[in-house]
Structures are given as structure tokens and as C-alpha cells.
């Protein structure tokens, strides 16, 4: 009986771990993809670096 109790606790821990891992994976996959496939990233003018070197002509 004692052995079964221990085994049940282990299974709960594994499920939580897998759920956490799945969530982490989904978040990691979503963050870099969403801004490119969805709308462009919107920045305020204060976030612009006006003096950043660039290669645009004109």
C-alpha cells in the first residue's frame, strides 16, 4: 500500500512538470513569431535611435 501511494505522488508531479514545460515551449514559440506574422512592432518616437547607422539611400 505504501508503495502505491508514493507512485501516485510521482505521477502528479510529472503531469505538472509536463504542463509547465508545454507552457514554456508555447510561450517561447509565440513571442518571436507573433510580431512578424501579425502586426508590426509599434514603437513610440522616444524609442527611435535617430543616429543609428543605416544603409538606406536618399
Amino acid at each position, binding site marked *: 500500500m505504501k508503495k502505491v501511494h508514493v507512485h501516485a505522488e510521482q505521477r502528479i508531479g510529472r503531469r505538472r512538470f509536463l504542463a509547465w514545460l508545454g507552457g514554456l515551449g508555447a510561450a517561447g514559440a509565440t513571442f518571436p513569431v507573433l510580431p512578424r506574422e501579425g502586426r508590426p512592432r509599434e514603437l513610440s518616437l522616444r524609442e527611435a535611435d*535617430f*543616429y543609428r547607422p543605416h544603409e538606406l*539611400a*536618399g
Partner: protein
Amino acid sequence: MTAVACELCPRRCVIPEGGAGDCRIRVNLGGKLRATTYGRPSAIHIDPMEKKPLFHFHPGTSVFSIATAGCNLHCLNCQNWQLSQRGGEEMEQIYRADPPEVVKAAKEQGCKSLAYTYSDPVVFYEYVYDTSAIARRAGLNNTYHTAGYINPKPLRRLCKLLDASNTDLKAFDDGFYRRVTGATLQPVLDALVTLREEGVWLEVTNLLIPTLNDDLAMIRRMATWMRDELGADTPLHLSRFQPQYRMRNLPPTPVEALDRARREALDAGLRYVYIGNVPGHEANSTYCPTDGTLLIRRVGFMVVENKLTADGRCPTCNQTIPGVWK
């Protein structure tokens, strides 16, 4: 379903509801024409005025330069295709910058001028117009770098707010325009004449592409037309081609070809002919057409020395040099 006709450029797109024009950014929303990039530039930089290039307009000053996505030309050799050949929603980032904010930022950065540039500001016309109106009230100059593919009526309206323009004349050949840019020549010539008539300080850029538009007879015709229609004092920038975008099969323009084209344009009667995209070339600099005195020495986009008098004259012979110097 109400279609709208865009009268801004010679394409005169008829746009169905929910659709976009050829430029990708002028759309029909509920039967009304809207520019999706109004107040949403994707490029903002502070550049030297010489980079536009404007060589006879406030030399050595900084210019607050903005552009949104989109263009009404589709040049195979486009240098800024990541910006111009996309719609606003395809950009990785955009800035929230309504006209008053742009002018405020330019002033805070100590810029005397704004530039609408990089892509073609024709397509974000309303944004240019509103920003220019506020900039002028704030005492800033408005400069415009364009391919000049715009209808006369909107251009004349905008000219009231413009101080200077560098306009591309990509070739003096309609076939080149159709094949390489997807546009036509005559509206560009009309736009150049309009800019001159409206008193906007005008400089012209011609990018010389090996085998496509570097024929000396064509250069001669172009320079002669400029002399007769725009005036011999209109600066011409002959610029070096580099393989880009969908035109990687051609080599960079040989410097000798640029030199030959410059001599041809000078022989045709133009007084100020520069060579661009060749840093350190002697034709980056301004010379007095009367006695040859070196007036403004430039290395690339940098003004190294400016000997013009305060009222824009040659210090040696007192010849007036046309331009907007202060």
C-alpha cells in the same frame, strides 16, 4: 461595394472596397481612400543634407528624415526595396509619429530641415502635407526626395509647402522607365517642370546603370533638356549604380563612365554636375563655373570646407552661385 479612384499618381488606380492600390498603402476602407501609413513611419534618421543629395541647400546641416513603407514605382534596382516594396503591415516595426510629434522631435534634435525620403513620399502624400504645414509654421524647411511620379494637381498643392527637392530622372528614355521602373517618363518630366515653376529649389539625380542608361547620346539629350526646361544652374547628380535587389547581374558603374557622362553634361551646358556614390571623387565638390575656384569641398556626404561668401558668391570672382545657402 464602392470602388474609389486614386488621383494622386499617373497610375490612377481604381481600388475596390477592401483593396489597395499599386503602391500597397493607399486603400479603400468603406468607400474612402486612406493611406495606411499616415503617422506611421518605418524609417527615421538624422542625415547630412548632402546625403539626400542636396548640395546647394543649407550645406553641412542635419536633416530629420522620415519614410513610410510603400512606393508607386517598382525599380528592379531599388536600393531601399525592404522599405519601398512592402506594405505597412509587412514591416517589422513602425513608429507612432503624428505630424506634430515629428516636428517637435526634429526641433529637439536641432535640425533645420525635414526630409521625406527613402521610399517615395508621393505615396504618403497626406502625411507629408500635414507635417510640412506644421514644420513651416515652426520655421523648418521641407525637403522632398522623389521619383516625381505624381499628378500635377497634388504636386502643385504640395509645392506651396516645399523648400527643396531632389528628384530622380532615372533615364531620358520611356522604354527604360517602363522596363526597369514600371512607370513612364513624361509625368516625371512634367513634375520637374512644375517644381521649377513653383520655385522649389531643385536638384536632379540620375543613377547611371551600365548598358541600360549610360549611353552618352542619351546623357546629352537629358542634359540639354534640363538646361532648356529647368535652367543651366540646376545641379545634376550622376550617381554610381551598385548591384541591388533584382538587378544583380550588372556590375557597378565604372568611375570612368561617370566621368565621361559628367563631361557630356557639362558640355551640354549644365554648370553643376556632381558624381555620387564615389567618396573622395573630385566631383563631390562644388566649383565656380566662371573661374574654377573650389568653393565647397566634400568628401562623400561630409562638407570639409566651405569658401562661399555669406551671400553665396565665389570669393575670387564674385560670381553668384545659385542655391539656398542660409
